[in-house]
């Protein structure tokens, strides 16, 4: 498990670098090298580190460990074929990480990031729609049983396409430099991450790399099926590049537009679920 955790962290950081590179090339800039985020994580590991004088110390430090723990747990759930309800829970608990990170410092910038995280709570609901839609088709929330279902009946990507779109939107909501990345917008410095620097930032980079890896891996596993590792990685990369294109050509929305769009999408998906419930009895 430890070696897979290190592998996932490395790939996640590499994916972050590729994400930045693709965005830059689409926008006509050379962009940083693709290993830039790995260098960032290493650089922050050796920077001087302290805790701001105004911070709630236990929460400031504790939340970083919580971030790493929940995404390591999520990876474990995927590898062992656990329940996607657990995955949904972890995704929602990541919201607490965002809140805690922002509120614990006392800084107004991080606090604004935390408030933006609170008001964009609608971004989590499409994942719930995904969970319910998958349950309608497979009758189970166990990842092992969902992949077994796909081996028998073909990928869920085709039969449950709106649910796949919902999950795609969920991943897009959590991508850096995306249209919904309001919690780390530059007008509030780095948003809720502003005061976490040095080793804390390095640890957060690791947690976020794991998060990206887990979300992309979960998409492939849930909607396409269990494949050899090399093929899974290629599909994850293609998915990432498509997300990077969206991020590159879409400006960051205002907080209220973000909430409006996410709520509208969630509403449309709820209608899909109701139709599904009526059609499938």
């Amino acid at each position, binding site marked *: 498990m430890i070696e897979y955790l290190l592998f996932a962290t490395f790939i996640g950081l590499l994916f972050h670098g590729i994400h930045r590179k693709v965005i830059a090339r689409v926008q006509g800039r050379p962009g940083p090298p693709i290993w830039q985020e790995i260098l960032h994580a290493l650089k922050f590991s050796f920077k001087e580190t302290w805790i701001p004088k105004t911070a709630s110390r236990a929460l400031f430090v504790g939340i970083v460990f919580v971030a790493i723990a929940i995404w390591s747990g999520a990876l474990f759930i995927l590898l062992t074929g656990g329940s996607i309800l657990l995955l949904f829970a972890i995704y929602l608990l990541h919201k607490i990480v965002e809140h*805690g990170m922002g509120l614990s410092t*006392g800084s107004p910038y991080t606090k604004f990031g935390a408030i933006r995280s609170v008001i964009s709570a609608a971004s989590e609901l499409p994942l719930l729609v995904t969970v319910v839609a998958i349950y309608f088709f497979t009758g189970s929330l166990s990842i092992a049983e969902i992949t077994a279902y796909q081996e028998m009946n073909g990928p869920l990507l085709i039969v449950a396409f709106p649910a796949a779109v919902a999950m795609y939107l969920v991943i897009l909501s959590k991508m850096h430099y995306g249209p919904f990345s309001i919690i780390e917008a530059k007008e509030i410095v780095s948003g809720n991450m502003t005061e976490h620097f040095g080793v804390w930032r390095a640890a957060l980079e690791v947690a976020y790399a794991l998060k990206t890896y887990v979300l992309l891996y979960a998409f492939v596993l849930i909607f396409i099926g269990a494949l050899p590792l090399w093929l899974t990685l290629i599909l994850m990369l293609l998915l990432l590049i498509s997300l990077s294109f969206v991020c590159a050509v879409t400006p960051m929305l205002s907080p209220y537009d973000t909430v409006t769009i996410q709520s509208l999408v969630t509403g449309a998906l709820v209608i899909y679920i109701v139709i599904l419930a009526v059609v499938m009895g």
Partner: protein
Amino acid sequence: MFNLPTPHIGGPELFVLEFGDIVAYFSPYTALLFAFAVLFTVLVIVSRPERQVDIAFGGDAYYTKEVDPDLLRFQRFMAIACGLATLGAMVTGDVFNFTLFASMIGITNIGIVAAYRNRHVLNAAFQYGIVAMLATVPLFGGAAIILSSTGTLSMWELFGGAVAVPLIAKAFLVLGVMGEGMAPFYIAKAEITRAQGAPFILMVHVSSLLLFLRVMEIVISM
């Protein structure tokens, strides 16, 4: 072993805790939620609040707010009570107990926020209080419909598939939990975030999210 009827939803049963005819259970799902609630309750106990930095607009000045020790003690007490209520809601095996814990979470959440003497925060707490009180009607109404239509409130019976729970009861349960703290009533919570005491205010969010996650498991399983 009681053989949890829904191992394909939250995972297999790991451990049960009997309180007479009420049997709390730990599956991988409820155990994760329970562990998360324990973690944040411990954080509430050991943490001191942050000192918020406010910027005076129109200049370079900024100042740090002072922490009132009395306020700190009260907020911490309410946050710990909220944490304990959340722990109960995460593992209970009885729908009525779940609704009781949910309403207790709503009450303690209002207590955490209402302690802070700021007009905006108190307004938000007032609005939140009204929504939480209104939400107790669908919350307990949902439980009442389940009892009247199935004859039981035990999740062990309701999850089995032998009894059919009306859709309206499930909808009422979800609506009640949403009223106790979840979106779309979050808009009041953005104001709540002005209040000082990050570890305690965070407990408001932790309890609401965990409660929502638990009700999802209950509704899908029934």
